[in-house]
């Protein structure tokens, strides 16, 4: 089971689910209105999440190869 693949849902839920709650200008984040900053942070987290999944997939595949050999 590659349960960790479900992590890919986190950015989608976080980014979009948060929108109704952060639909405000204040507090400012690095000079950006809150909504824009929120979206931006989640874009970065999307990349981070996919990197994590990729790393775990690679480990999973290496182990599968070893046990198969």
């Amino acid at each position, binding site marked *: 089971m590659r349960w960790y693949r479900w992590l*890919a849902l986190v950015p989608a839920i976080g980014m979009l689910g948060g929108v109704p709650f952060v639909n405000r*200008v204040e507090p400012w984040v690095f000079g950006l*209105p809150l909504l*824009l900053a929120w979206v931006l942070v989640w874009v970065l987290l999307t*990349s981070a999440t*996919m990197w994590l999944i990729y790393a775990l997939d690679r480990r999973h595949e290496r182990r599968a190869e070893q046990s198969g050999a």
Partner: protein
Amino acid sequence: MNPALLVIGAVLALALALGVRARRGRAMTLEEWTVGGRGFGTVFVFLLMAGEIYTTFTFLGGSGWAYGKGAPAFYILCYGALAYALSYFLLPVIWRYAREHQLLSQADYFTSKFGSPGLGVLVSVVSVIAIVPYLVLQLKGLGIIVSEASYGAITSNSAVWISSAVLVVYVVVSGVRGSAWTAVVKDVMILVVAIALGVYLPLHYYGGMRTMFERIEAAKPGFLTLPATGMSPSWFISTVILTSLGFYMWPHTFGAVYTARHENVFRRNAVVMPLYQLVLLFVFLAGFAAIQQVPGLTGSAADLSLLRVSRQTFGPWIVGTIGAAGLLTALVPGSMLLMTAATLVAKNVYGRLAPGTSEAQVTLLAKWLVPVIALVSVYFTMRGGETLVTLLLMGYNFVTQLFPPLLFSLGRKPYATRAGAFAGILSGVATVAWLTLSGVTMASLVPSWPDVVKDLNAGIIAMLVNTVVLLAVSLATGPRGAHVALLSGGIHGAYLDHRAEDAKGQSGETA
């Protein structure tokens, strides 16, 4: 000729030279022309995909929406990132299947997967219908860039004619390898230009981002947040979901998948591409900076804002450089779109309707179709009045109709049947056409419902109709599919595969 046009002309010449050079030493078979002989590595596929995705829409449309609409423009930042997450699971499956079956186009996938050339024809027709507004968008963008950079010396209409001629020549001489090489030049230019503008303009005019946003907020309260009705959070979320599902359904994006050498290419891209989205932040900043500097551009004129503010701020040499970057953002995706549309019509429509056509004939026809499709797009460009983003959203609603049949076809034994796929696509496309032509929105359909429902992107209706019809018809026509699976290696194994693929598909769908 002013210096701005000179710079644009020089970059154009460079792009053409790269295109011609790229094909040298390679026989131009259809496979080489369209999928580069299936030998592109991570960097090339990354560039090709980024090249297709960062279009004049990103550059002029993104800044235009930030200028004209404010916060709703942020959706552009979201959907790309989520689409890349989805691509991690979706693209390797498609790529593996495409390689096994030597596929060249998106329509080939549906033809092969469902064993139905008719379905391939239908998918091609839907794709070409969706491509036209996307091409119109690129031509409009080119028209804006050339006429603005000429300081009005060249009218927008003649600029559209010049640009489409250039596009046609470019596509015919270079094919997909030319696009990938030009994409390198384009991406470097767009990165430099977008970041420079996004950093410089707020600093120059306002002394910083925070001050700029505060002054916008003071002048137009609520501009930096989503409104309570209309383009509300509910519109935002539904639009992001729809467009991120439709993202890879564009035939030229789907086709670019085939150019990869290995499936890991996509997994690495899924990690890197969201970061590339950040360019949009700077595009937005430039659009926001334009609000108080070049006020009064309304409707589709908002797309002019980036170039207007550049003209006001910089001398002609820099305006030319910005224009040239814009030109490339239209040229690369525009050439991919034209090439894809021509290949689809030649191979997947004509080739099916007139069996016995040789590959050489199909290749020749594809090349002749390039100017024809360009002319059709020029016609619509001259007629239109929509903003770039509106055009894109319309095309998106069409291609997104290919997502449900794709999703339910991923398993080794697809859940969707041939009839189900047909019925789903037809009903979805009919719904989109009806919504577009009649101007119906959720608000006019269910006026008494709460705003959360009324503000949903109406494309959701088409998607639901499509999915429900597809599942219902597949269920009704299912037993024959099961029979085929029995013949081809045991129902139980197929069932397990199907379940495994299904689980993958589901995680992908919502991601």
